[in-house]
């Protein structure tokens, strides 16, 4: 009886998760499509003055205009591209650095492992945004690239710590010993056993980090440390709309919705991804 209940409950759980995956994929897909579209077409040139100052929402300007008279909808569309670019870049950098350090720590001697683990803990205790600000300040000046590198490096500590823990857990398993006994080299063990086993958890974490990277980029841009003009980052749009938030609230609401919808979409996608990558959670065939 209780078995039947568990099976029903878990199949409902799977259904719910695949549902979240679909919604997440649709939202992220929409942002991706819009981002790609801005490469060839936007309703107006996002940098040009296409209307009066602070125009209200109309069919001509779907999200009104900003205080200079630029079309906000076109700016927000371009913002999708920037958010996705920074998110992807940060995840690639954070993932590569983080996984390398994490694997290194898991295989290192006890002393080196302790040093690396302590270093990671300190990095993680350091606020991501503050770290990113430091990196931006230390480089030649704010640009899209510095934002990507800064957020990526800040993310890498979290990825490294997770990789280290997951790898150590897999290394303690009998099948690693069995594989070693049958003559697999350490490189082979990493390729055949460790990466496939840590990948599902790591993938979900990377997806969540993607969402955090999008928020971090908006925060950096809001502070003026992100992509400089004419890049229309959502964070900068929010900052520019701040002065006129009572007279033209749409200027803050529209980029806000764009930012929140992308982050929620990514989180839903992350939730659903885990089940696709892990066969033990997939329905039995």
């Amino acid at each position, binding site marked *: 009886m209780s078995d039947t209940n568990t099976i029903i409950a878990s199949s409902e759980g799977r259904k719910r998760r695949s549902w979240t995956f679909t919604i997440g994929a649709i939202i992220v897909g929409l942002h991706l499509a819009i981002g790609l579209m801005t490469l060839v077409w936007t309703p107006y040139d996002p940098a040009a003055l296409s209307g009066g100052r602070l125009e209200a929402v109309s069919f001509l300007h779907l999200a009104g205009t900003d205080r200079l008279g630029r079309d906000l909808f076109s700016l927000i569309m371009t913002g999708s591209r920037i958010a996705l670019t920074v998110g992807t870049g940060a995840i690639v950098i954070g993932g590569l650095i983080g996984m390398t350090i994490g694997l290194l720590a898991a295989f290192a*001697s*006890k002393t080196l492992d302790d040093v690396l683990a302590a270093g990671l803990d300190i990095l993680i205790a350091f606020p991501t945004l503050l770290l990113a600000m430091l990196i931006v300040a230390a480089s030649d000046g704010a640009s899209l690239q510095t934002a990507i590198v800064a957020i990526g490096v800040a993310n890498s500590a979290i990825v490294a710590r997770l990789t280290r823990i997951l790898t150590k857990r897999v290394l303690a*398993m*009998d*099948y690693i*010993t*069995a*594989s*070693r*006994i*049958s*003559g*697999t*080299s350490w490189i082979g063990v990493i390729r*055949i*056993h460790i990466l*496939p*086993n840590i990948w*599902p958890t790591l993938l979900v974490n990377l997806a969540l980090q993607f969402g955090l990277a999008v928020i971090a980029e908006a925060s950096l841009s809001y502070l003026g440390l992100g992509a400089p003009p004419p890049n229309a980052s959502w964070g900068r749009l929010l900052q520019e709309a701040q002065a006129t938030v009572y007279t033209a609230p749409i200027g803050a609401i529209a980029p806000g919705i764009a930012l929140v919808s992308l982050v929620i979409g990514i989180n839903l996608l992350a939730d659903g991804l885990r089940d696709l990558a*892990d*066969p*033990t959670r997939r329905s*039995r065939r």
Partner: protein
Amino acid sequence: MTPLLDIHGLSIRTGEKSLVTDLSFSLSPGERLGLIGESGSGKSLTALAAIGLLPDALKASGSVRLDGRQVIGARDRDLVPLRGTAAAVVFQEPLTALDPLMKIGRQVGEAVKRRATRDRGATDKASITRKVRALLDQVALPDPDRIINAWPHEISGGQRQRAAIAMALACKPKLLIADEPTTALDVTTQAEILALLARLVSERDMALLFISHDLPVVAGAVDRLVVMQHGHIVETGLVGDVFNQPNHPYTQSLVAAARAFDDALEIAE
């Protein structure tokens, strides 16, 4: 005949604590030896030391020669070719002995491929699959087509252990180390796995190092016994001799316990 596995004066320590002290025994090709003792007596550590896979925190001293090569103090890289060809291991817990994220067929296939690469044999997909199927047949797994495409969590504990044995066999080892291979299984499955191991060892003319805490289980599977307690060898001898005339008090208590269990069965009948 030179012994396949020759352990002489092996000691294993962690920090100040001695886990295995001055252990010596040897194993000839084709011989079946049982290593018996209670939990924590150092049986499994001895097996790991035999193939040079002790955790870094443990220090081994003495001499372990596997297939004529010194294992203790050897570099890991030098041991890789020795492993698998000289010895393979079947573990106690079949669930953790298989990678949960790899289908059984591929898992056995990896071991087959490694051995084929070493022998410079064919490593194309078709011949690997053929060999995997033959191995699954040999360990008497039913419905090999289904098992090849099954994930480890989709088959039973006994079937998992058979798959693990197939992986060990794929290496074509001269010595099979079975580390409590039946402890996690129910009694009927246990008997089947024991019969399977006995058949495979004689068919393939492998040596067997059988590790267990269960005297009756070991007695049926091996010719000679080494009894360990607290990291020391307390008694060695042929199975019949040890059973009929146990010298050491620990062995006597093991035999008495086994007899008491038999008697209880007879009374129950």
